[in-house]
């Protein structure tokens, strides 16, 4: 079963199409990261999934239910954390948790206590007096305590200091169990995502550019460095799946997006006769950048005179 499934999901604000015909599949049991630059449509997508925003086209199913028909019964299985969520500012952390608890049959008081201590939250402090990191942790606590089947995190790490971020991730992993526990997270923080995610979706300009398992993505991307044979010039013909081509001296560097050891080696031997070729795996950040830039090489630096 899929935890989230959208078909042709679209959201238009007057002139602006924020999300364009999105077909997204988040398998149950996965940690799915939605990456994309600011304004790519990540939050809009999540708001539609949470039925906070009505799609202007297409449909979304969340935990098997049409997003427009999500009822309290489904929301009791979903934990949604975003910075934009309004909290009752006048309540203390303790009062807020007391207030949330009765809504959830599965609320785990032991887990609540554990997390309260782990997150180092002051129970008596009013929410309006909490720091940004504490607010996020309070919110996270209030959804982890009922052990949701689907955790939806909208930019959870942005603006958090490293200690809070670490607490946050520990908290998320605290309730993780194998099987149908699903996390859907939108983020800028590629390093964090690279550790946690098993699926990656890349969204840009409201369109899904890529959706793939992280391990297969890591398998097929390599930075290739070619030290060309003496006196040879860089070839002008190059396969379309080689991105970000750069030449300097006798070195040519590019990103192979369809890496298979034997085939890549054979192709390189044809294009660069007698050259020395190395292939390095790429961090997700570089994969992301190379896809975002496409086939345009980085701007050459003007030669020093």
């Amino acid at each position, binding site marked *: 079963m899929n935890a989230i499934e959208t078909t042709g999901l679209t959201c238009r604000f007057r002139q602006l199409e924020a999300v364009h015909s999105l077909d997204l599949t988040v398998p149950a*049991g*996965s*940690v799915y990261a939605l990456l994309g630059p600011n304004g790519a449509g990540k939050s809009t997508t999540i708001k539609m999934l949470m039925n906070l925003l009505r799609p202007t086209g297409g449909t979304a199913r969340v935990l098997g239910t049409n997003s427009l028909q999500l009822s309290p019964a489904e929301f009791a299985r979903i934990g949604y954390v975003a910075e934009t969520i309004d909290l009752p500012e006048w309540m203390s952390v303790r009062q807020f948790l007391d207030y949330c608890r009765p809504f959830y049959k599965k609320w785990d008081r032991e887990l609540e206590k554990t997390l309260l201590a782990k997150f180092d939250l002051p129970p008596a402090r009013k929410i309006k007096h909490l720091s940004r990191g504490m607010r996020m942790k309070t919110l996270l606590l209030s959804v982890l305590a009922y052990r949701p089947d689907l955790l939806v995190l909208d930019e959870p790490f942005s603006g958090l200091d490293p200690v809070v971020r*670490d607490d946050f*991730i*520990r908290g998320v*992993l*605290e309730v*993780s*169990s*194998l099987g149908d*526990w699903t996390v859907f997270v939108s983020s800028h923080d590629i*390093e964090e995502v*690279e*550790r*946690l*995610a*098993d699926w990656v979706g890349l969204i840009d300009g409201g369109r899904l550019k890529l959706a793939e398992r*992280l*391990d297969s993505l*890591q*398998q097929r991307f390599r930075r290739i460095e070619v030290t060309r044979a003496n006196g040879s010039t860089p070839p002008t013909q190059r396969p379309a799946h080689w991105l970000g081509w750069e030449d300097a001296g006798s070195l040519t560097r590019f990103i192979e997006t369809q890496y298979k050891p034997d085939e890549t080696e054979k192709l390189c031997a044809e294009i660069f006769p007698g050259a020395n070729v190395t292939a*390095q*795996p*790429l*961090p*997700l*950040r*570089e994969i992301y950048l190379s896809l975002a830039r496409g086939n345009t090489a980085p701007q050459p630096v003007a030669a020093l005179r």
Partner: protein
Amino acid sequence: MLPFSIEIRPGLPIAEQVLFAVKKAVVMGQLRTGDKFPSVRVLSQELRINPNTAHKVVAQLVEEGVLVTTPAVGSVVAAPALGDRRARAELLGPELERAIVEAKKLGLTVEDVQAAVAAHWRKLSDNSKP
């Protein structure tokens, strides 16, 4: 704390990195036969990695005979498969390559490197099983 050293680096699949670190710890004597191996849960929390990945790692280690699972105790480090010395030596490939590249940069010879390796070997032999 985990009973083996690891530093996760971006770029390579996490599961591969953890597998490598565990096997290396076994070869280097950081993990010894009968040592308790952390559960999937602990592994995932300590390394801040996806529990599915942690599960995959443990399953793979059991399949390769590095770990054995016993119902009450969990996973423990198995006795090393002695016939598999070459496979274990291959684990050191990337490490050796790095050392050799550094050695060449420093203008050292094979003999210099071998002597250095032997010296380090003796130093460590006191702390780990032969």
